[in-house]
């Protein structure tokens, strides 16, 4: 724990001695820390049962990996080993795909769609029932603040299953003039930033449309997927409909290249996405890719400034900035930039960085050592490129991988930190003068996942929004997610949509009525 627990005054001080500054600080900096700091409020992990070792979940059972190789899962907040899990080989993937194929042919694709939907509803309910456990494990395994895993990841994951469960018997209404047929066996590879939520985004629509799946969670965050496997067992889901094979890149590659997989869904980096797309060349496998981003958040001078500051904080500091759709490039209209940055810096001072399990933590641990080093490398690059770096003055815990919220000013479009996805709590700030300049800068990137527009003027929102080459346009808000809302990228940010009615397309073959 950081020393947020200790107040600089004793409890018996009922009044605040610092109450009457006769003259304000020269820069009118606000003081957020000299009085009444929050005591630690850790979520208890006492009732959480993490096994010493996990196997794959294949054909309804937890099984030992074919070659016995394992990987350790580290708690990034403490650098301690949480558990060991199997590293999937070609044999493991093959077993999972065969199980998925068999149950697809014999059971799942023949099941009355309404019954299929009822299984998915059951899963949704069971996620809700075990929500606190899932949230705690998610935070331990991945380092995200419990406030986010509890209030965002897990409830939206459950909502995703609820949403798609209802589609199972209504697919005839989804595609005008066409009948939707399942694709078959879907190979799904998900990232470490929203482990359970990404699992939900993948599995819920796949099952609703009658497919079976082989899913590989990320190698730093396998645990909630394995708890999800238990939920599948408890829900009585037919064996083999959902298979979880854990492992790293090679395991993913085995899934992508497996001959009997009909569709690949991948969320992760653009680099790996391109490798997957290339591997699939010449096959008839369908694929969807949710890749990287470098979202622009455009603040016009007529915006609701305080809400915009909050939006910027949500855009880049949510989930330690490990968000593909993060608003990592701030574009502020010149006339307000100074005041805006001052407000942003003030707001950053109130962000609490620390123990992911503390309910007051705003920014948890960086997911892994690798990512931690990568972010630090970018901080160095930024400084070497001549940008001005500002970090909040918060304390960081001694152990674990933590990064202070960081902003860079005095930069231009050509800086690497402006062009490349950092995937951490690092924001670059540029200014613009006219809407056209803002649009140009926003679109001047190979990515196209998200953008933000802040202005009180409706017609400007529509005009600028129309010109954004990005799959999501958050106007006067940012980083909002909902199962009914399609999500996905333009350009190198990916292909296909997840969520909403549009999220059904990737999992269906459309045939003429």
């Amino acid at each position, binding site marked *: 724990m950081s020393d947020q627990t200790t107040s600089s005054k004793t*409890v018996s001080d009922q*009044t605040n001695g610092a*109450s009457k500054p006769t003259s304000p600080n020269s820069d009118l900096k606000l003081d957020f820390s000299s009085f009444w700091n*929050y005591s630690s409020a850790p979520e208890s992990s006492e009732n959480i049962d993490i096994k010493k070792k996990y196997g794959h979940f294949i054909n309804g059972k937890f099984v030992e990996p074919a070659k016995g190789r394992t990987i350790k899962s580290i708690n990034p907040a403490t650098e301690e080993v949480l558990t060991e899990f199997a590293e999937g080989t070609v044999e493991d993937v093959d077993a999972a795909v065969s199980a998925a194929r068999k149950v697809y042919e014999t059971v799942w694709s023949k099941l009355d769609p309404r019954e299929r939907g009822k299984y998915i509803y059951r899963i949704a309910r069971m996620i809700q029932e075990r929500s606190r456990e899932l949230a705690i494990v998610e935070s331990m395994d991945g380092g995200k603040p419990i406030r986010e895993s509890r209030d965002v990841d897990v409830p939206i994951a459950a909502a995703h299953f609820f949403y798609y469960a209802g589609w199972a018997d209504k697919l005839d209404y989804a595609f005008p003039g066409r009948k939707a047929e399942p694709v078959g066996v879907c190979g799904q590879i998900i990232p470490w930033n929203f482990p359970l939520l990404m699992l939900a985004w993948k599995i819920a629509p796949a099952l609703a449309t009658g497919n079976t799946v082989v899913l590989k969670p990320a190698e730093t965050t396998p645990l909630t997927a394995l708890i999800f496997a238990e939920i599948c067992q408890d829900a009585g889901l037919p064996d083999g409909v959902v298979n979880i094979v854990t492992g790293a890149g090679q395991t993913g590659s085995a899934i992508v290249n497996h001959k009997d997989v009909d569709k690949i869904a991948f969320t992760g980096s653009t680099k790996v996405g391109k490798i997957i797309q290339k591997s699939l060349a010449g096959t008839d496998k369908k694929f969807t890719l949710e890749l990287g981003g470098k979202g622009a958040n455009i603040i016009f001078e007529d915006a609701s400034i305080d809400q915009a500051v909050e939006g910027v904080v949500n855009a880049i500091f949510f989930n330690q900035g490990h968000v593909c759709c993060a608003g990592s490039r701030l574009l502020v209209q010149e006339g307000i930039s100074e005041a805006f940055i001052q407000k942003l810096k003030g707001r950053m001072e109130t962000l609490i960085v620390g123990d992911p399990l503390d309910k007051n933590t705003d920014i948890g641990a960086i997911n892994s050592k690798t990512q931690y080093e990568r972010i630090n490398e970018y901080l160095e690059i930024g400084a070497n490129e001549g940008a001005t770096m500002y970090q909040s003055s918060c304390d960081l815990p001694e152990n674990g991988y933590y990064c202070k919220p960081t902003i860079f000013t005095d930069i231009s479009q050509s800086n690497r930190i402006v062009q490349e996805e950092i995937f951490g709590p690092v924001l670059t700030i540029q200014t613009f003068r006219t809407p056209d300049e803002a649009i140009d800068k926003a679109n001047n990137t190979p990515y196209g996942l998200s953008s933000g527009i802040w202005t009180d003027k409706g017609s400007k929102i529509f005009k600028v929004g129309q010109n954004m080459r990005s799959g999501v346009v958050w106007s006067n808000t940012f980083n909002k997610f909902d199962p009914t809302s399609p999500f996905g990228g333009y350009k190198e940010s990916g292909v296909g949509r997840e969520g909403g009615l549009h999220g059904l397309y990737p999992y269906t073959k459309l045939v003429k009525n």
Partner: protein
Amino acid sequence: MYPDFINTTPIDLVGVEERVSRLNKRSIKKDSKLQGLKLALSMIDHTTLEGKDSEGKVRQLCQKAKMPYAPLPDLPTVAAVCVYPNMVATAKQALQGSSIHVASVATAFPSGMAQLQIKLDDTKFAIDQGADEVDMVISRGEFLKGNYSFIFDEIAAIKEVCGDIHLKVILETGELETLTNVRKASEIAMHAGADFIKTSTGKVSPAATQPVTLVMLEAIRDYYRETGRMVGMKPAGGIRKAKEALQYLVLVKETLGAPWLSKDWFRFGASSLTNDLLMQIVKQETGVYQSNIYFSND
């Protein structure tokens, strides 16, 4: 030079509500909870503003203010008692010897529907009776007509009468309806000389809300950055529970910072809040959940 009050910064309701809801998730436990509860107690303007108020009622109120809970004599007292002008003398006398202030509503409270001269006289009367603080109401009708200079001039005139006496300006946000109006009224009040801005009379629903309070706190912060002058904040009406009080304190802490966490810069206009805070304080100190039968209801 005063800013353009017609084009004040717009406020987005949903964004404000999201911010409040995020701040409400702060978990205030252990030491920080007890500290917060006592702090909140020290910030109360213990209030009675009813047509049926009498000297006897006001004296009871003052006794409670001085000694909120006899078994814990070291507890802080409330900051002030808040009464109508004709009760100020009674309150002043009852509070003699304590550091508790007497605050008086004035300016044809709660509607403010009177001529300026009457409002000035009302204010002067309250001060002459011994009020340490004056809580005035703005003319919401004029505000909603867009007559912002009227509002400004009226506040400035009352402040002139007040002199060094602390002037709290009640915006009656429940009648202003939009948060953009709340922001605008806050700016006008501060520029016209308000020492405190206050949400409500308590006679209109909704009275104080956290979104409204957040917007006012942000206006205070921006005004401070612009002018270097600190202005206080008083949410009033409808705050009954200790938990809510702590939530308000979190808003203050994370918007304005530590210097405002003091009765000199933040007040709760409330009556039943006092007892809930006391019950929670006793619970924290004893570990036992409390019943209101052990707490005097003045």
